[in-house]
């Protein structure tokens, strides 16, 4: 059979549809997350001095180096440029106390990159939130270093909030609810309390979270269901017995709650992707966090709540709306 078209002529490029693509890339997602974390870092520098910045830079450098090393060892394409390691390193620094020694931070970040992410194939393929895996290793191995707190010393303007010597959650746990009188709500909100670098200033974290929502990097499902379920759960117990359980709003404004809801519980790949799945995930995180805070062995439950819910993610992805055109099979 004679050929329809001479193949000597230069052929056109062929590819499958679609022939246009949205401009959003993985780097776009990651660098926007990095931008969203900047207010929290600035707040950390303001309250705890430039040691915070030093720790953040150490963690980010460690994360990039570890990713490069692992990619080299495994013979995979280098994807440093997409910024995921920078986000990982910065997030790790933000959930550390400013007093954490540099070697602890390096070990934790390296564990996060290697054990948390790279051995599974890198970004998006890890079952558990890599930052929290690294943090859990450091927290359990170096308990003393990871739980040493310093008082905030604002660089300018504000007086140091000197009414408590420990992070608010430790105060509730150790001294009991009755010590909480004349609460300085404003200090709790702007972060003038002891705690981890990036989580004390709820206002700065919220700005970053709203930025992520506005840029459509994340959806509302997980943060809203996380915070709402935690607050409502706390409200129930506060109404039952305010002598034992504190005002639920204190729990929202202290510890990692807001950073966890907007940044850690929305980590790509470790959380469900369907809308109902995300809402159940958020509710689960909120409830488990509060259960650990009330009765658990750890003071702040956010990390373990998210890690536990990460394990359920493949199951939660099965919770999904009915697909188009699905009809009951007539037997």
């Amino acid at each position, binding site marked *: *059979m*004679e050929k*329809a*078209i001479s193949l000597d*002529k230069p*052929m*056109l*490029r*062929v*590819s*499958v*549809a*679609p*022939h*246009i*693509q*949205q401009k*959003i*890339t*993985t780097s*776009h*997602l990651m660098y926007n997350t990095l931008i969203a974390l900047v207010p929290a870092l600035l707040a950390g520098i303001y309250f705890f001095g430039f040691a915070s910045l030093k720790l953040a830079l150490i963690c980010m450098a460690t994360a990039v180096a570890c990713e490069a090393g692992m990619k080299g060892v495994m013979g995979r*394409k280098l*994807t440093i440029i997409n910024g995921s390691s920078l986000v990982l390193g910065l997030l790790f620094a933000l959930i550390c106390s400013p007093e954490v020694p540099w070697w602890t931070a390096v070990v934790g970040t390296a564990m996060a990159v290697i054990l948390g992410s790279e051995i599974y*194939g*890198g*970004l*998006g*393929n890890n079952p558990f939130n890599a930052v929290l895996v690294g943090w859990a290793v450091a927290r359990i191995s170096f308990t003393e270093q990871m739980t040493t707190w310093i008082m905030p010393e604002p660089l300018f303007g504000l007086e140091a909030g000197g009414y408590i010597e420990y992070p608010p959650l430790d105060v509730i746990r150790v001294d009991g609810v009755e010590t909480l009188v004349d609460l300085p709500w404003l200090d709790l909100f702007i972060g003038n309390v002891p705690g981890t670098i990036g989580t004390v200033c709820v206002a700065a974290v919220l700005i970053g979270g709203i930025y992520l929502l506005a840029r459509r990097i994340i*959806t509302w499902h997980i943060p809203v269901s996380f915070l709402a379920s935690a607050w409502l759960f706390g409200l129930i117990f506060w109404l039952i017995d305010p002598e034992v359980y504190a005002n639920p709003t204190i729990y929202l404004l202290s510890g990692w709650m807001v950073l966890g809801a907007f940044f850690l519980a929305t980590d*790509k*790949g470790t959380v469900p*992707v*369907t809308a109902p799945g995300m809402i159940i995930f958020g509710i689960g995180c909120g409830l488990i966090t509060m259960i650990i805070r009330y009765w658990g062995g750890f003071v702040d439950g956010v990390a373990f709540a998210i890690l536990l819910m990460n394990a359920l993610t493949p199951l939660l*992805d099965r919770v*999904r*709306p*009915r*697909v*188009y*055109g*699905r*009809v009951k099979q007539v037997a």
Partner: protein
Amino acid sequence: MGLKTSFSGVSLPPQKVSNPAIEDAPLPKRVVLPLGQNGNRVCKPVVEVGEQVKTGQLIGQSDDFLVAPVHSSISGTITAIRPWFDLSGNEMLSVIVESDGNDSWLEEIRADEGFSDKEAAQLLTDLKAAGVVEIGPPSMPLHAKFATPEPSKEARFLVGIPQTKPVDTVIINGIDAEPGMAAKGAVLTKYSSEIADGIRILQKLIGSAQIVLAVNSNGSVSSPLSGELAGLSVQVFRGKDKYPLGLNPILIKCVTGREIPLPDGNEQDIGVAVVDAATLVHLVEAVRDLKPQVEKVVSISGAGITAVKNFRVRLGTLVQDLIEQQTGLKGEPVKVIAGGAMTGVALLSTDIPVSKETDALIFQTATEAKSFSPDACINCGLCVRHCPSRLLPNELSKYCEFSMFEEARARFLLHCIECGICAYVCPEKRPMLHLMRYGKRELSLA
């Protein structure tokens, strides 16, 4: 009339459309007319090499219900009957006609018979003889949408159960769904009296059916058309500016609230027929003027053409000839797309003819042409957020990539309507739609 339901989707970049709305493309020197539309269903040629043909003369026909006859789109001499590549790159038997430059039509055409005293059966016969093809997908002869086909062998055992629901809603799709498409909106403006006649013919064909005219959200019904529509029992459905509203499965859902039962069903199962606005004009010409389909309105864009232009092109005109007529082209196109930017087919060569399924051509230069990446999915969930079929494309693409086709079928791979949104939004630029189609193909062969 508004949307009955909402759907996920995506807002695509807006496009400009040039005026005047539709220009006539010059008469081609040569046309290549493929003798079939879908796959193996091909007409038999009824002419021989060397024969003189006139415009509109029958050159191929078939007894098959799902094959439309083919007519010569110019007058001249038949120089060859041989295989030629069709849009998707398959070889198909085609008739090649060299023009004599006169464009002399068969005399019985342009008879302007009118249609008011014709019975429905006569209308269908005229429609079949004219070879009008609904663009789809799936593309099929238009008459097949309204005629009752012979029941299949399996169906004969199911006595008393009606095989297909009678059509109760006809949707005239006047929505230009994708970037690069502008033909339907232009047709609605320029051929307003034909559209009104088409609605009358549809009412004769299917007496009890409700007729809905779907138009773009911004393209309000223009003054000549709204005047023509006055007094006709037709509902106007205004869409919104969101892809894939113009694709049939989603359009049907938004207009009627019904869903096509997938994976095996089609729109006839739910009593709906969708007719492309441009095809409706061919229907009117077929029934009123006994004129076969020899032309197609094609939107041309890309490669320096910022505003989409519409041309009335003779069927069988080679894309190369169209490129040579274009003065606005900047740079050599490296990619030519037949169809819209979201679902169109990239052509193998510029020597491929314009067919009854072509409603747009997009030329892309080296800077405009996109490519896909082999990187792994990062599970960001953007495709899930935008999928109008509410699938999990991230998971399906991985199943197909690693040859787990049965798992993909169990996760509703066959419910994918191939709108291409997942590949459009993917931040890793994975070839999502390619993987879906690959999986579907493997399942169909298994």
